[in-house]
């Protein structure tokens, strides 16, 4: 696959790799995808006063899946959780100039953000 330079940059120097403590109440964890499909994204946020102060990810998948999750972490770091939820897969796909066949990688990244936020809310009994 011929990728844009931005994908290659994120792939070669991914941002925010790692893990946060899943048991910490301030941490929300989202894991999306499946080994059968060849992509699994794990994205974690640490929230303080409604603001995402730290983000980490690990991704099993193709180059664009790794790049999409790396970029997603950059996008939401420092944002309020409700703002983070507004990040769309389109924002990711356009920034990285993903080829059409790889658009699902950006969708997955969007879902991973949503799943992490939801997990945080569930842990802290936040409704809405």
């Amino acid at each position, binding site marked *: *696959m011929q*990728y844009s330079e931005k994908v*290659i940059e994120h*792939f070669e120097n*991914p941002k925010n*790799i790692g*893990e946060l403590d899943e048991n910490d109440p301030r941490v929300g964890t989202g*894991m*999306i*995808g*499946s*080994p*059968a*499909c*060849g*992509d*699994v*994204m*794990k994205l974690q946020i640490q929230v303080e006063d409604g603001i995402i102060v730290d983000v980490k990810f*690990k*991704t*099993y*998948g*193709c*180059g664009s*899946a*790794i790049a999409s999750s790396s970029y997603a972490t950059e996008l939401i770091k420092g944002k309020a959780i409700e703002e983070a939820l507004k990040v769309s897969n389109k924002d990711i796909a356009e920034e990285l100039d993903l080829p059409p*066949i790889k658009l*699902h990688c950006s*969708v*997955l990244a969007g*879902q991973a953000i949503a*799943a992490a936020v939801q997990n945080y809310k569930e842990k802290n009994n936040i409704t809405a």
Partner: protein
Amino acid sequence: MSVELPIYFDYAATTPVDERVAKKMCNCLTREGIYGNPGSHTHRFGWWAAELVDKARKQVAELINAEPKEIIFTSGATEANNLAIKGVALKYKNKGRHIITSKVEHKAVIEPCKYLQEQGFDVTFLDPEPDGTIALDKLEAAIRDDTILISLMHVNNELGSINDIAAFGKLAHECKIIFHVDAAQSAGKLPIDVRALHVDLMSFSGHKVYGPKGIGALFINKDSKLNLVPQMHGGRQERGFRSGTMATHQIVGMGEAFAIAKEELAKESARLAELRRSFWDKIKDIDAIKLNGSLEHGAPHILNVSFGFIEGESIIMALKDIAVSTGSACSSDTLELSYVLTAIGAQNEMAHGSIRFSFGRYTTVEEIDYAAKLIREKVAQLRSLSPLWDMYKQGVDLETISWKGDH
């Protein structure tokens, strides 16, 4: 000695034309060369060209212990497979409508078989063994009274697994079933004796053997007294089996390439087998690694390896200075996992991380060493990014997890 980058480890996809071959080909193009139509019987230009074609036919035949008149030139192994399979099916459909092939054949065999299915033929696609070969007893069990054709490959292009063609040939012969073999990957790598193998039809490709692309051949055993329905109609070149002006330069190229292959086969195959083994020795202790196919009984030029818990396309991107191919879904146009790996029952988290390394005439020890080192480094790097790797390390069984966001 230093290594020139990028390194080409995709010789099973295609090979560069050998300079000795290119030189002979160039001599068949321009006004100074032999440019006549080999089918022109009325003048010297045609005779000269026909002489070159005759020589090439002999060169191809000699690699496989055939006679020149048993060789039909086609545009490639794809066309040879189509001519063999459709040509037999259409000719002998009144004798029976059952065809046996396998799930791990090249698309150039699977697709003609599927086409025949649509035309009312009954096709059995045999399941391979875990090493990619076809078991003789399974083949035998699939044979029916109305079976007219068996088509099985010699060497599998993804795995390098080698079928026992002599045994299949003997069985087919005893059952009076026509036997076709796709030998695109074995020519020049394994010794081939069409007489000892009992094959009726065998397909070859020029560009896998340091010849040009766009040329191939079909061996048609004279003793089998076969008739085939041509798939290309026209001026009745190639004894009517394949119409179209003979492409002198391509044919000459394939002939020269096959002559060189014969000359160098024993030595070169031993050298490749040694490179392949030494490459595997340098990477085999990587955790969660698996050789797909067989180390001992595989073709000397193909090594298919799965790196668990990382994905093939990302491996290819990380190994950007090494040209290889993958069976991973993400790198195919259809986002489907390789049907060959699926057929041998590879687990998802292994199959997605499969890489085919294939070596050839210009592969050096230095390239092998360089690549092995780079692979160790990049696999570790990608695993540090992989949540599945962490789970594997923690002893989590991936089968027990309910995955979200399947697509």
